[in-house]
């Protein structure tokens, strides 16, 4: 199984990585911390599952290459890319640190946003979960997602 994790926060990623390993044992985990690299990855790869952050930078930050765009709804870019590639059946877990998600210039609560994303972008298998460093609630939902 190949799980793609799109996450720019290393600390958060390490927690996700540990959770995946604890839940599924040794599986392939591919990580990207920006939208550009993820989009390019989709050109020749199809992951089995995706764990996705919402707020992402446009590109990798490298010395002398200019400032990446910080995109608060960057996760939607990834979803739009999946839609245009017709990869709408890949299970996606949106793991966000914010209790509201911006979709098409409107904010939705975690519960509403899952339905909205499904309706607007036609993603079939999607869960949206609030990530909190100090809580383990998200872990239960993430485990359910991974075991699906």
């Amino acid at each position, binding site marked *: 199984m190949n799980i793609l994790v799109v996450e720019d926060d290393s600390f958060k990623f390490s927690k996700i990585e540990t959770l995946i390993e604890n839940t599924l044992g040794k599986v392939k985990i591919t990580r990207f911390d920006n939208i550009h690299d993820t989009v390019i990855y989709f050109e020749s790869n199809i992951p089995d599952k995706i764990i996705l952050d919402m707020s992402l930078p446009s*590109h990798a930050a490298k010395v*002398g290459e200019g400032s990446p*765009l910080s995109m608060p709804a960057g996760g939607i870019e990834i979803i739009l890319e999946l839609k245009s590639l017709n990869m709408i059946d890949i299970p996606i877990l949106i793991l966000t640190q914010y209790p509201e998600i911006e979709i098409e210039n409107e904010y939705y609560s975690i519960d509403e946003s899952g339905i909205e994303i499904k309706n607007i972008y036609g993603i079939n298998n999607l869960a949206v979960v609030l990530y909190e460093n100090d809580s383990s609630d998200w872990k239960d939902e993430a485990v359910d997602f991974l075991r699906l």
Partner: protein
Amino acid sequence: MNNKHLNRITISLVKSKKARNLLRGMIGETEHYKVKNTLRKIKNNCSSIEYKKSIEVIRAAELFEHNSVSRDFNKVCPNTLPDLMRFTENEIIDKINSQEDRINKLLHLYRDLLVSIQEMKIRDSLKLCRSIIEHKGVSCCLIRILFYIKNHADDYDDYDDAQEGVEDIFRKIEMSNIGYLDNAIKELSNSRTDYFNICKKINGDQNKTPLNLIARDFISHVTSDEIVFLNTLNAYYTFSLLDSFLYISSVNRLKLPLTKGVKNIKSSLMDSFYSLSNIKVNTKLYLNEYYDDLDINLFRESFLLIELDELFKYKTIHGALYNTSEKKEDVRLPVEKRLLSDYFESIKSLSDLRNHENGGNGISMDKYDSEKCSHFENSSALLYYIEKNDANISGEEKIFIELMSYTRDIGYTCPSHYIKKIQHNADSDELRLVLACLISIKDKSQIADHELRRVMQKLATSKFDSKIKYLVRYLYDISPSVTHHLMQVCDETFLSKLFHLTEKPNKAIEDRADMLEWYGEQIKDLSYIERAKNLRIDVQINKEKGMIDDSRIYVDPLKFTQWINDNILNDITLLLEAKENKNEFTAQPLDWRKVQNGISNDEQIASLLLKCYSEFCNNKLFGIASYLGRRIRHGTFKGTALKEVKDFSSNKKYEDIFNDRDLSDCYNDWLKCYENMLEELKKSYLHIKSKKKPLGLIHSNIGTTSKNIIANHMLHDILKSYNKNGTSLEVPYLVTEYCWRFIEEDLANIRKRLMEYKSKHAVFGFRLNYSRLLKRKHINEFCQELNSVTAEKFRTISSWFNKPSIASPSANLTLLFKAVISEIKGFFTLFEPTIIHKESDFNISGGLYFVIYDALYILIYNAAKYGKENSELEFKVIPHSEHQVINISITSEAKNSKSLAESKRLINAALNADFENAHIEEGKSGIKKLRRMANDQYISNVRYTFPSNKITASFDFSVEF
């Protein structure tokens, strides 16, 4: 009601004693507000019949001739009541009939006036206008005609007479009484302003005063809605009896049941109207105008002379298509359908439209003619064809793309469902791209934006070596208009999001610079080339920064100023250019809460400036919203405020304290309360105020008196800058600076709120008597340390809400110097100077750094080209605070004495040569350009000295220390 009765209207006709008494108190009254107040009292205290009677009395009786509110016949413009009168169609027709002779007399004068205008007899026209005024015939119609004369003053031989004559009449008839209508007519008929925007403002005004209803009728004279008809009739009646007659007669041409009362109008009046409406339009008045705009100009002016049948028909046909309604087809009247099918009879396929340059230019009043039409009529033809064929353009895709260069505003006027249908059936990628562009003009969703990017990337990858700039160039040959649109769309943000083509952020800026430079050359517009150059400087500076930008700063100044350049500056410039005289550059104080619906020139500029402020606050990529989002979303806020505070419970030092249950419970309760407070700040207050976040502390509007004062200063400075420089180049920097002034008030409120919450919820206290076992000193120490941590955290968080020190685009001089050296090394591979950097550094902001880069470039380029290789290059920065200047000098070594003499000769020659053409013909050394920059006062004191075997070049530039 018989005519005799109507002709002798007196107070006694009003039955209510109270109303009669109030009316008597108004006799001879000229003060508008007093008349208004008295009428309000009658309205509130008497029946509606008595109120209407009272209105009739003050409109007709001589005793109230100067009441200034409302008369049947006027010598000056009435200062109309804000509330609409409620007369029935028949009541108004009765009044019209009762004044048959007077109205007929006026109609004859108006007829003569319209004939005289079409014959371009300016003096006769103005004389007739004065005669109409003498006959108390001032009307909305007269004002429209006067605007028509004014708009065409250029076409008359005696231009000054026309301009002055109209202005003189405007003063005489007291146009200031109807400021709203004055602005509405001016802006609707001004081809330089955004037509749809003005229409939106007028139609969006919820007050629906009589003047607003009249302005709405200017936009759309076609209605089948009885309420709209009756309200508009009353609005015109408020202005004058003649206007109400002209309105009914005009609408009657639509042959709808709602004007059934027309049959009751005296036939002599209708005959006079027919005689007037038959006058032919002299289209020669438009033929001197810019080739591709002449028909839109006629359309935008058609409401000025809507009484003329030809213009009524022209506006009816094109107005049915040229609007932004998505459901225009559904509300179309039979008469419109008939006129459209008749006018566009010749169109059988898209090739029957104009898709090439045509020799002639003209206006087609009767039938569409592709051989002489301009862009506007051609657009109507395309919209008509799409409608008629239910968006089926199979086999005609190439023509459709070509038509984009011979039509206008299709993205706004073509209903989305048709565009989507064409898109669904499209065969070629080029057409898909054009359609994605058209969709994205109106549809600002992420889906539409992504689709446009997807199509562009696919096309660029498959046919243009993954180079977006080549795709844009290719499209220019098919349709320059599509290219123009893409030039507007493809800003750096958009290009950054072309993830399949743009592998690093700097590439987006480089591509944008390439596109701007190429396009500037194509359309011969130096401003594009200048912007390209400045972008390249930014790329160069980025490369030299040697560090990753901290994107966690407030509003990104560069992206914000670029956004203004790309989205707002053109519109502001057009409005600034539309100002007719110097007086208009003195801004009058505005109420910024109302400017969004305002239609005066200043209000429109203000409305665009508000858009800038809204973007400054709300833009999710570079605005305050982005900053707040990152601070909050990434958990920085809560993390900063909470982590160390929480760690206290696991601190060994306080283990014994937490063993005490009382204290431990107290701490846990307090911590919960503290966390809730942070959550409340995060969820409710640290936001841009909106429907979803009503408690948000950042207000992206101008809602307070102090912000209003600042906004008026901003407008004043912008007008002053344009008036002084003749360009709007400074505008983005001025706007950025003022946006920071606006938001300072909100930031101060956030800081205040944070401190208030800190005092309330971030101070831990513990009653010592609860825990006798513990040592008093130790507990005090714990409380003190905890409170000192929360205080420090809140100070840190509070500091996030200060204006950053660098709020404008900026760079320091050393960085500029390094960036220039690096760029020049690219041209001269052997150029490896030993850099000696002396004295201080200085940060330059507000766009001035582009100029300094240019100047440094010239000096260092010459040093590299003519100087000794691998020698010393000395860079000196000396501030002179007493003169508010900074002196920059570059000293390089000459190759040898011969070379020094030759350099001296060349430099002196360049310093003494003519530099006027420096921006067109750049000399080899660039010294001419340096002098040109000094002449334009960007820099000063350009000097060359020659100490020993060296050459020192220096210049000053002004700064505020």
